[in-house]
């Protein structure tokens, strides 16, 4: 080992250096909320299997103010996830050609967002029709 102590630039807070990195972090951090929401649903399924009283307890828990705040935040994060997911899709999906021309990024993002709106509306209508 030599006694040299070369300057190594710290990587702390690297993602705050650039708006591009901040957007990257915002996009990736949505995963934490996706996981939390999945855990809430997982609890619901487990309580469902334990009978009516247990499941009603879970339903009551959803009605607490903190869970409302939590779900409002999760909803906002999911909307951001949808937007960012299709925003990066031109880079994450294989290159597609339509009629000999490369599909433009705006078309891919727009199609994805339109599909999301339709899918969400479909889910809302199906659930409203049920029960």
């Amino acid at each position: 080992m030599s006694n040299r102590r070369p300057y190594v630039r710290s990587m702390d807070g690297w993602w705050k250096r650039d708006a591009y990195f901040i957007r990257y972090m915002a996009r990736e951090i949505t995963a934490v909320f996706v996981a939390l929401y999945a855990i809430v649903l997982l609890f619901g399924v487990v309580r469902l299997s334990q009978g009516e009283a247990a499941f009603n307890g879970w339903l009551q828990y959803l009605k607490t103010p903190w869970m409302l705040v939590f779900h409002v935040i999760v909803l906002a994060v999911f909307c951001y996830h949808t937007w960012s997911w299709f925003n990066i899709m031109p880079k994450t999906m294989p290159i597609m050609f339509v009629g000999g021309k490369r599909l433009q990024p705006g078309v891919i993002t727009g199609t994805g967002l339109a599909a999301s709106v339709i899918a969400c509306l479909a889910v809302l209508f199906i659930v409203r029709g049920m029960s």
Partner: protein
Amino acid sequence: MKRSNEPIFWSLFGAGGMLAALIGPALVFITGIAVPFGLVFKPDTMSYAHMLALSQSWAGKIFILAVIALFLWHAAHRIHILLHDFGIHAVTAVRILCYGSAFAGTVVAAYTLLTIKP
């Protein structure tokens, strides 16, 4: 060359991300806001009887498992990379923790759904 297992995890990540992007906002609105607070939908939309009926059908079981498991795998993949971004470089430990949690959640969800008999 050793075959990479990355495509498996990336596929689960992609499938979960796509499912969340397509119907995630609607699901959160229904289960977290509208039904618990009596908006838009009938108050008994998520009643025990209705949710039991849903989880007794194979289509319902598959849908519930797909949402929970794919969301977990999607999140696990991103969080495992995030931890690296924040300077945690114990790659194997982080992978086992993240993918292991997703795997555990998947097993619990699948087992629980299978125990709900028609």
